[in-house]
């Protein structure tokens, strides 16, 4: 097959839900340690693209590669399940609505998957939980249940849960959209910290300021195509395409 040189590579991604074409021939590459932002109006296909990367929404056509391995390669069902579970362990995902496991404590939310999938001991799990929760500033809530946390705290635990699998790549789908405005910053701080540690990240966001401050590159999507991509200085200050300018103008007006 093709010689692989990019860390993440999406080639000719297509996706339809019934007759609705949601992704139309998308290409995207991300290098190790890069942070890529995806912006665009509601329904443009941002989540679908992100979710195609770990095959949560399988593509109808095209390829996804991660670190030299094709994620969505065609294999017999059983083998594919094994393969995709192994791939997903390497990709952390953070959802808009946190999706913490409400029946588990914060500690068990973080350690459940590593214990089950990597067979680590209870002692190792405890160390891992403390380490990851410390990292997101949530160590003091280690014994709490999700129902006892604020939205911002939940999202930080969700990030710790994803990081506990030691992923190579982190995907964020509007991690702060469901939060009260005063709770957004604490989550953004955690994401900035990851950026400083050179975690490779793909971030779908409606927060233009945040995207401008952390991303190396920003993609603007509309109706299933990437209209324009480039460094944030260009996309936000001086975009080439008329449609990008319109989106940004509307978005800034909408926010005001």
């Amino acid at each position: 097959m093709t010689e692989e040189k990019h860390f993440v590579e999406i080639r000719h991604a297509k996706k339809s839900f019934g007759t609705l074409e949601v992704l139309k021939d998308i290409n995207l590459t991300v290098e190790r340690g890069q942070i890529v932002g995806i912006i665009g109006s509601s329904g443009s296909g941002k989540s679908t693209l992100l979710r195609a990367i770990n095959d949560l929404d399988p593509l109808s056509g095209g390829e996804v590669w991660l670190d030299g391995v094709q994620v969505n390669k065609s294999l017999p069902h059983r083998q594919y399940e094994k393969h995709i579970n192994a791939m997903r362990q390497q990709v952390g995902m953070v959802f808009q609505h946190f999706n913490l496991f409400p029946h588990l404590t914060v500690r068990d939310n973080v350690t459940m998957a590593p214990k089950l999938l990597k067979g680590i001991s209870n002692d190792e799990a405890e160390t891992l939980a403390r380490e990851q929760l410390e990292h997101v500033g949530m160590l003091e809530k280690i014994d709490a249940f999700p129902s006892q946390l604020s939205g911002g705290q939940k999202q930080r635990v969700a990030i710790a849960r994803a990081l506990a699998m030691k992923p190579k790549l982190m995907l964020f789908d509007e991690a702060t959209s469901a939060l009260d405005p005063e709770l957004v910053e604490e989550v953004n701080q955690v994401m900035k910290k990851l950026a400083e540690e050179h975690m490779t990240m793909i971030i779908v966001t409606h927060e233009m300021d945040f995207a401008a401050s952390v991303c190396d590159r920003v993609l603007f999507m509309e109706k299933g195509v990437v209209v324009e991509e480039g460094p944030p200085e260009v996309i936000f200050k001086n975009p080439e395409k008329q449609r990008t300018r319109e989106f940004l103008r509307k978005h800034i007006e909408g926010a005001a």
Partner: protein
Amino acid sequence: MGLDFTVVPGFMDIILLGALWTVAITVASAVLSFFGGIFFAVIALYTHWTVRLPFKAFEWLFMGTPLLLQLFLIYFGLVQIGIDLPAFVAGVVGLGLHFAVYNSELIQTAIIAVDKGQMEAARTLGLSRGEALRKVVIPQAVRDVIPPIGNNMIALLKDSALVSVIGVSELTLSAQRVIGKTYRPFEFYLVAAAVYYVINLCMEWVQRRIERRIALSR
């Protein structure tokens, strides 16, 4: 002749032994109906139709016919095909499977109602579908139906009196035997009723404790 409770203490040992059997059969059947309910729910929701359809017939048998008939079938019927179960075991199997089918209905609905983001989050971490069900979805579904399952278990306690017909010396049959000796039906049925009531209270207490323990985990 009026009521005379002075005869009661002399037969309390037989009544209490019967109560013990009632508790034993209720607890054993409750455990079977709980795990059976989870197992049946998984069959109903996640297996191929070749497994699911025969299961539906089995489910109909347990939901659509009298429990009494089911107990006769298990105790007297199975002997004919070489399965000779002791009365206690036959009673537990009958009660347990009967209520497992009812619990399964509750658990199925609850599994479907678990937010689909839970399955997604688990799959994203690398869990297989089966692992995600076992670790994430089913525990939440079961937690959500603890109160109605608790009600089923109270119903199970009351229906456990039916196993007297296959000769298990539980509370109701013990009371009958004492009545046979004393000709004091009113007194001893009342005593039996009081003992059922006490067992019932204990079960409600256990249920409340479980509910309090899981209150935080919602």
